[in-house]
């Protein structure tokens, strides 16, 4: 992979979208996330890397409170999106998740038509006033997910009938259809072949224009290719966080270096 180009990538944003301070996550007695503090910028792709079980997915799921669905999971600390504490008692996780969309590791389209898959979010959030409105939202979402040309003639076909890469892009379309401000992606390419992966990566880069994207990945090349900021997690700790080029070429922490060079993980 051409890792050299990451050096040339400029980070041209300044606004902080998500700020997490001293976040602790416990699964029962297991202390999964320890003292993680991180500031995620707007209109930036931030990659979380680290060995399996290091807590990067767990931390990602804290950002839209998907961990609420796990009974034994307990989150403490302070996570703010646009300065608002998302773990405040007044915050409804449903509203939060409309603002912070998520794409999962395994493509998980609903067993419904392609159209209904994308239209579901706008429908339940009342984003469309009319049928033509909804059609437009669906088309835009599918276009943004770079899948429109492939599915425009068969919008009524089942979402599950698509190939793996198409399914994942459909899931991305579904996530962007609700107009989120932050898009969380939990290893979105782990089930995809290299071609589909390339398409999704290209897509992520485009999505950066409008969203703050946080992506968890096991592939360091992928992190290097798509992200501007990278956070390295190890054993529940955030070891190092900084500009992608810096992390991959000149990491401050020896653990980061060992991981990147393949010595731990």
């Amino acid at each position, binding site marked *: 992979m051409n890792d050299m180009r990451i050096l040339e990538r400029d980070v041209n944003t300044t606004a902080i979208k998500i700020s997490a301070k001293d976040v602790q996550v416990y699964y029962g007695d297991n202390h999964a996330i320890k003292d993680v503090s991180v500031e995620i910028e707007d209109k930036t792709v931030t990659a979380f890397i680290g060995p399996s079980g290091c807590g990067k997915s767990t931390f990602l799921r804290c950002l839209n409170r*998907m961990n609420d669905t796990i009974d034994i999971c307990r989150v403490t600390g302070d996570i703010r999106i646009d300065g608002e504490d998302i773990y405040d008692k007044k915050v409804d996780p449903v509203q939060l*998740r409309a603002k912070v969309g998520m794409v999962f590791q395994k493509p*998980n389209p609903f067993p419904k038509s392609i159209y209904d898959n994308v239209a*579901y*979010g706008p429908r339940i959030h009342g984003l469309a006033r009319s049928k033509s409105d909804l059609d437009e939202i669906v088309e835009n979402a599918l276009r943004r997910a770079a899948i429109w040309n492939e599915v425009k003639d068969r919008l009524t076909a089942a979402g599950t009938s698509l190939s793996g890469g198409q399914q994942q892009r459909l899931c991305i379309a579904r996530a962007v259809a609700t107009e989120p401000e932050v898009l969380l992606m939990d290893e979105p390419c782990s089930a995809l072949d290299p071609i589909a992966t390339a398409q999704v990566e290209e897509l992520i880069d485009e999505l950066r224009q409008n969203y703050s994207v946080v992506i968890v990945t096991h592939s360091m090349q992928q992190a290097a290719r798509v992200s501007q900021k990278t956070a390295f997690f190890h054993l529940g700790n955030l070891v190092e966080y900084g500009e992608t080029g810096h992390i991959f070429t000149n990491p401050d922490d020896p653990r980061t270096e060992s991981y990147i060079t393949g010595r731990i993980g």
Partner: protein
Amino acid sequence: MTDATQTNASDAAPKMTKGSLLVQDVRTRRRNAAEARFKAYGMIAISIGLLMLVILVYNIVSRGTGAFQQTFVTLSVELPADKLDKKGNGDIEEIKKVSTFGYSPLLSAAMAQTVRDLGIKTDMKPKDMGEILSKGAASQLRDYVLADISVIGRTATFELLASSRVDGYLKDRVTRDSIANDKNISVEQLDLVDALVAAGVVEKRFNIGFITGSDASDQRPEAAGIGVSMIGSLFMMIVVLVLALPIGVAASIYLEEFAPKNWITDIIEVNISNLAAVPSIVFGILGLAVFINYMHLPNSAPLVGGLVLTLMTLPTIIISTRASLKAVPPSIRDAALGVGASKMQSVFHHVLPLAAPGILTGTIIGLAQALGETAPLLLIGMVGFIASNAPDSIASGLLSPNSAMPAQIYEWAKRSDPAFYERAWGGIIILLVFLVTMNTIAVILRRRFERRW
């Protein structure tokens, strides 16, 4: 790994000639023999099962089909005005005073007349000839007259049921030898029947009355039908469906999707599983104590039967619903929550539709189980001689005394007259038709709802 294999290989190398692949070694032969044996056991088990099924079906069909055929006597009966409307004023209240005993001689006379007209020689008295007919024939005649009194004074043609002995004679259940000690029928009467069969007056025909009619007293097995208890069963099933399905599904959704997992829900879970194994008669006595003795709902009512069967069916529905909810992949829930659906939206829009085939199957299995249940009905008075007419409204269908199909079958099977025995088998055919129909509907609905992901 690699080291170990290499060592083994080199150790064994001298005597490693494995023999020809064309010859099975002892181990392989033994393993193959074991496999063949196991397959044979399986085949034997299935064959035994199939054989039993064939025997069962053969028995039911061969014994039960008789109930769908009944012997009828076609008879022209004169309805003389001087006997039925003695004052001649056409007052229905007056005519009602003539009981069935007043109609019996008319039947006997009509019988004798028919026999004379056909030129059959017999020295029986008209009354004895009339005994060929069912004891219900007179009331059939009376009902006919009371329904329209203008027929008085005319002659009308009736299809009257023959007595169960005559019916049995035509179905080879009653023979000339077997009636030696039978006071209900004599050899002369059988001779007459033979003659009448030859003349086409007496014949066996499909008996819709068995499917639509109500139970009849010990004296008139030929008139007994399963129709009214079928309606009783239907009303019970409606009660069960209306109560058990929503309660069961709501309970399972709550337990599976919303309830916190703690010791209270654990206890509830264990209890539900245990309830599924509680003998049904226990539910019967619970129903007796709660619904009848405490809540004072009417005895023998399909409403109470339905409530008891609801209690019995709920665990089945809850267990199968929870199993099918569990089978929905969690990724679907994540997907729905991820786009900002609420928990309830994710359950009702996505999880429930996917679980529907399983829920449906569980419900229909529960209903089928309830349909065939007899024991709890014993305790709430739905088993017994209940010969009410078909209910005329939903309220009376729910509240007036009725029986249920399996209870009716049990009732017939325990009566002494062999004519009822035939009806018990016939009832089982109808019950099985119901169950097979329900299962077919379940399969069809399931196919329809089934989606793949």
